[in-house]
């Protein structure tokens, strides 16, 4: 079986990177579902979550507590930014709103540079142990944490949007903002919570993934780009679609590197995106439109 161990390693490698893309894609979808806006600053919540948690841990705060504090801190930051900046231009064109999210991305990146400098931060894995070996391939335990937390977040999202009044109100805002506001639902409030949720999930992605990376102030770009591709392939407003697309993207990259060549991994991923946009512009898993 040893001769096939690299095939398993490609699979594990794909699952590891795919989980990262999937979580970021989910955070993008949450904001999009409610405000029909692609938030290009999402990668920065990833960075702030990870670096804030790393700082707290370095100050002696326990990992679970640091995780929770960073989570709520990022949530508050997302909500605050929506209240301070997005709400003011809510009525303007989608182009203006996208430019605003790009401006937020650049501002947050600058802020991260001031706070954390250029240094890279390392956070110890949630469970410190040797990687699991399966058929000669090794898988890091942190990937189980990422997968477990992704499943938990998905369940929470499902529960929130399906079973709570606020979630139902947010869905109503997404589907028919005018109708929802006529029914007495505050569209602004729904968008505020969507941003808070989106920021929190972005931060969760950063915090769970940072033990696998060396996180610094520029680390938000790659997950944002790949998360956006996963979101586009999965269907802009499909949460499950973006998760499946994220994992698929990771696996395609990994098997391309392993079986073809590392030179083609990005080219194949982007070709895939172009094909999906040409053949099924609403995404592979979007049944709504």
């Amino acid at each position, binding site marked *: 079986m040893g001769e096939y161990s690299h095939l398993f*390693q490609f699979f594990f*490698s794909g699952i590891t990177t795919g989980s990262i893309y999937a979580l970021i894609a989910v955070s993008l979808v949450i904001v999009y579902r409610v405000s029909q806006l692609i938030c290009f600053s999402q990668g920065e919540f990833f960075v702030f979550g990870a670096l804030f948690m790393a700082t707290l841990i370095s100050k002696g705060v326990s990992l679970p507590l640091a995780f929770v504090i960073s989570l709520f801190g990022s949530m508050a930051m997302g909500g605050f930014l929506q209240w301070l900046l997005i709400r003011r231009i809510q009525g303007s064109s989608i182009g203006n709103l996208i430019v605003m999210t790009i401006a937020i991305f650049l501002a947050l990146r600058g802020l991260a540079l001031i706070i954390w400098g250029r240094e*890279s931060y390392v956070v110890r894995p949630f469970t410190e142990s040797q990687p699991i070996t399966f058929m000669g391939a*090794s898988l890091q335990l942190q990937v189980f944490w990422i997968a477990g937390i992704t499943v938990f977040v998905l369940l929470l999202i499902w529960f929130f949007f399906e079973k709570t009044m606020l979630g139902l109100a947010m869905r109503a805002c997404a589907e028919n903002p005018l109708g929802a506001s006529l029914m007495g639902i505050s569209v602004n409030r729904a968008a505020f919570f969507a941003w808070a949720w989106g920021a929190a999930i972005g931060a969760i992605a950063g915090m769970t993934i940072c033990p696998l990376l060396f996180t610094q102030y520029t680390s938000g*770009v*790659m997950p944002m780009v790949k998360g956006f591709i996963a979101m586009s392939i999965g269907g802009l407003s499909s949460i499950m679609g973006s998760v499946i697309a994220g994992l698929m993207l990771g696996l395609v990259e*990994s098997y391309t590197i392993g079986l073809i060549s*590392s*030179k083609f991994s*990005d080219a194949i991923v982007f070709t895939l995106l172009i094909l999906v946009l040409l053949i099924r512009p609403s995404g592979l898993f979007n049944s709504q439109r």
Partner: protein
Amino acid sequence: MKKFLIFILLLLFVGLSATNIGYAQKPTGEPYVIGGIFPLTGYLSWLGEYKKKGSELKVELINEADGINGRPLKLVIYDDQSSPEQAAKIAQRLISKDKAIAMIGTASVPISGAVASLANKNSIPAIIGSGYEVNPEKDRFVFNTAHKTDFAVARPFQYFKEKGITKLALLMPIGSLGELGSTLARKYAPSYGITIVGEEKFDVKAPDVTAQLAKLKTLKPQALFSFCTGEPAALVARNMAQMNMNIPVLVSHGNANPGFLKLVSNVNVPIIVPAGRAAAPDAIPDSDPCKKVIAAFNKRHIAKFNEPANYYSAEMVDAIAIIAEVLKTTKGATGEKLRDGIENLKNFVGMQGIYNFSPSDHHGTVLNDMMVFEVKEGKLHMLLK
């Protein structure tokens, strides 16, 4: 009698004070202006800070010791913002406005190229510290105290040969650095009996390189070479450890810094880093003449900055020391005379090695001035002296 004694004591006090003032007096002549071009902001700023600290302290020490024949050195520093365009503007300003007699600094090949062209055009010597390969026929006024990039590949390969490592895999970052690493590896591998068994590439922003490593692992290499610096190099080593790929990984000479050592402090694979002596002075044998120079400078560096000098600051310390040495014997510091003085400098003991310049060698150092280290518990341990 008591008054007389007090008077004598007062006289002695004044006399001693005057003597102290005399010794503490700085050199009084017109200063020799040296221009410092460092990346203090931008992506190379982590290097620029080291270089600035080292060169400033070296100038301070020379001036403390009465300067150059009674004339002080004055270091005028500007920030090149890690940009060749900005470096060119600064070099022009240093030459025309500040009347610098020589320039030092820079930290990358493109920035060095920009400064080199102005140095040549204006006949003002520039001692740079980067991977820029000086061609003395073209770069008549350019010198380089950084070890040649070729040394960073050839020396570790020499170590591999000693250890019987003959099968090497390459995992190179996508971009010019990776291309350079790959080219140099293929250039030097045959000379050291090494076969390149395979090559893969990776994006420096990638979160995981286990797929590439798994592919390379099937080729059963005895060592891996990844010519990258900082986080990508640390990621390669960490992913290797996670895959139980316990073979040496050679990374670039840009990693001989505390930041990288911290990143890989818990990584359990042999990480090979080529660097100069200043990277790990404790590992140098007492018989090495450079040890004394490094130890004396480090003492003052630690006292002033709370940290020892390093591989990158050493380049600029040597640049200042070389200019000072040549100025001592040069009458009238014109560009040509300084250039000729540097070209004739032999057996000059610096922190980077023993310099022997000539009209056809503007680097001055040799292959053996590059040491080979292994990272162990966050410290560099010398493998090849």
